[in-house]
């Protein structure tokens, strides 16, 4: 079995498809594309397939990853990419297909961080901070030693110090009136935080409560942790042949 890593996008209407359904979607797409995928044994064999950190419903992405076991020892990666794209729906595009080294950790286990670009939906932006205020809030947060975010779910609540899980946080310098906030944050299975936590925390510094469904979020890429603590794009682990 050869392991390959597939990078794909999720844009437009398909961003409302949940993670489990994206997995089911790919199981069928791989069959339609005629990829010689490896199957597990047993009575109901399933495709050898793992996904990196799941993307929330409603988020878009340029950097989703799926690892796949295939039967060809010397796979034609360009052909796999083309046939997957030919079998896909608009919004889900295959950006790259790479062959993984045998000792590479799988996508789910090795993902460490994700980078995001975040803005406000037009119908909500009037109730959200403007670009100058966002800039100010980010600068202010950078002078703080801790960023304690109070996370509340239906059953539990706990405080998380976001600071230790944020690796990068800035406002994009561009012509847009709307702020585009860029951040790289932890996505590992143990310490993962959501981009919404950071945004809520920042707005909370000025007692601003973001309205529901105001954040327009695009994941840009996912990273694994290098030997020296550096972040390496999940896409840079494999090779083109």
């Amino acid at each position, binding site marked *: 079995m050869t392991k390959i890593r597939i990078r794909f996008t999720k844009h*437009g*209407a*398909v*961003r*409302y*498809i*949940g993670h489990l*359904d994206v997995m*089911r*979607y790919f*199981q*069928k*797409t*791989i*069959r*339609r594309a005629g990829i010689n995928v490896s*199957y597990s044994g047993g*009575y*109901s*064999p399933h495709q050898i397939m793992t996904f990196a950190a799941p993307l929330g*419903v*409603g988020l878009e992405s340029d950097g989703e990853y799926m690892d796949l076991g295939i039967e060809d020892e010397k796979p034609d990666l360009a052909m796999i990419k083309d046939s997957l794209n030919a*079998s896909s*729906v*608009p*919004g889900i595009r295959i950006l790259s297909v790479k062959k993984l080294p045998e000792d590479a950790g799988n996508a789910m286990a090795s993902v460490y961080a994700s980078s995001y670009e975040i803005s406000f*939906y037009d*119908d*909500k932006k009037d109730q959200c901070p403007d670009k100058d205020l966002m800039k100010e809030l980010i600068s202010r947060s950078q002078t703080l030693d801790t960023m304690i975010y109070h996370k509340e779910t239906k059953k539990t609540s706990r405080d998380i110090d976001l600071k230790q899980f944020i690796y990068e946080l800035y406002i994009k310098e561009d012509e847009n009136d709307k702020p585009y906030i860029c951040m790289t944050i932890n996505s590992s299975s143990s310490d993962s935080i959501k981009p919404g936590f950071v945004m809520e925390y920042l707005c909370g510094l000025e007692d601003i409560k973001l309205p*529901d*469904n105001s954040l*327009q979020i695009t994941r840009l890429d996912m990273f694994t942790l290098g030997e020296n603590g550096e972040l390496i794009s999940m896409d840079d682990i494999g090779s083109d042949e």
Partner: protein
Amino acid sequence: MNSDGLFLSNDILMSIEKPERYIGHEVNSCIKASEDIRVRFIMCFPDVYEIGMSHLGIQILYDMFNSFPDVWCERVYSPWVDLDKIMREKNIPLFSLESQRPVKEADFLGITIQYEMCYTNILQILDLSGIALKATDRTWDDPIVIGGGPCTYNPEPIAEFFDIFYIGEGETRYRELLDLYEKCRDEGTSREEFLFLASQIPGLYVPSLYQAEYNDDLTIKNFSPVREGVPAKVKKEVVKDLDNTYYPQKPVVPFIRCVQDRVVLEIMRGCIRGCRFCQAGELYRPVRERSVDKLLETVYKMLDSTGYEEVSLSSLSSSDYTHLPELLDKLIVECEKRKVNITLPSLRIDAFSLEVMNKVEDIKKTSVTFAPEAGSQRLRNVINKGLTEEDILSGSAQAIKGGWTKFKFYFMLGHPFENDDDILGIGDLANKVAKEFFELVPKEERKNGPISITVSTSFFVPKPFTAFQWAPQCTEEEFIRKAYLCRSGIASQLNQKRIHYNWHDADTSVIEALLARGDRRVSEVIRKVYEKGGIYDAWSDYYFHERWMNSLEECGLDIGFYAFRERNEEEIFPWDFIDIGVSKKFLYNEYKKAKEGILTENCRVKCNGCGAGTFGAGICPGAYKG
């Protein structure tokens, strides 16, 4: 429309359950360039997406319509209650999935009507679309609303909501109707005149062109056309040759898991059996089979175009398909290669089917299903269910020896001429199967655990075009008494711990009977229930019996007249103007034979002259053989 080409805003999509129901964009969904399109046809299944998307009929017609270059067929399903509420609050019109445009802009809205309890959802669809509920209030600004499917064989309770009903199989007459529509629109014909011309096409029923008169006892005195030239009878449409017709090669593949998450391969239409309670068994006569070659060619194309990992063979009684062994032999080999599972619903349990099931399914996970429908041999003869106790016990014994431990039994309570002994027979039969297990499998060999038997009973609903269309239905109280009797019958058995019993709701069964055999006066009841907030009546969480009973009372109608009354031989039924081939005389004779407990042989053994031979198709003597 938002920036993603979706009709609903991000805010709404993020605040409802399963937004995937409303975004379209599924694999194989059809998008057409609008300048070539002369007719936009929207197909609707009036229930939630996951149910509607599982329906084969829509897939066939979707494929057929979209094979016409001048037609664009799209889909719409009932918005779930969460979105329904938002759409009403914010005045958002119902939209189709492909174009994400309002339904009202379409030329046709085709609604498939598969079960009576979806009638309030039909009103939901019309209302949310902004289409007048009453057909006679519509103008050319509204789509032509056309209904099809099994419930349209008695369309009267919903007649006033539809412009046209298509009686029979959709493959045959739609092209004619679309051509007529295009011509009428080009020539500026009025909507009324178009509907009159449509009534001339075989199989099409235009309810506004007919009128009912009633007797003092509320039964129908006369039912006839109101305009000269409108046919007094409407004959159902039948596809003569199932090998040379439409079948979807590229069915739409939903993102969310639907009820049917697999390729559905219809191997035949109709059923040879003639069970006296079964409507489908009469409506879909004559029995017609598809050829093995055509089926294999189709199924591989469908697997290639969808990527599904499972295929299900579909028919009313797959064991009666004459080429089943040959089809399965070939299919099993190819599906193993492709790592595709095969599921075989509606198989009669015998040596052959068990051998096949053993090959294609995991014994530990699957169960063996019997549908004796009645607990005693006497009553099985009454309902003409040609399944004997010996068949059941030898089938279950073979399954037990083969390693199966899960058994399901389906029965109906409240059949005509049923007595208490028949009901107690249900427990006896289940106990005999359990006893077989303990005798056949020694303790040390029970590696899959002990036997587990599930007995389910539903309540009998008399349906039009069956031998029991004259029969009275039991009252709710009588149904409940019977269910308790059945339960105590099971509880008194030696092996009662291995038998699990569940029964369906009695209230809905009675309303189902009202809607199944209702006349035009019942439409007011449906409208009142809808106005009281009734939608999703097929879902027990959203069914409120009081709404129906109160609405009946407000309309001055009596449930007993529709449900609990035995009809006499001469009575004119609301559905008598429809000709399904099978004659009323034949059905009445079957009713008389039921009373005597006399069996009628199946179509393959002997032609009983039911009348379906008029179509000259399929199994009928002297029929066209392709």
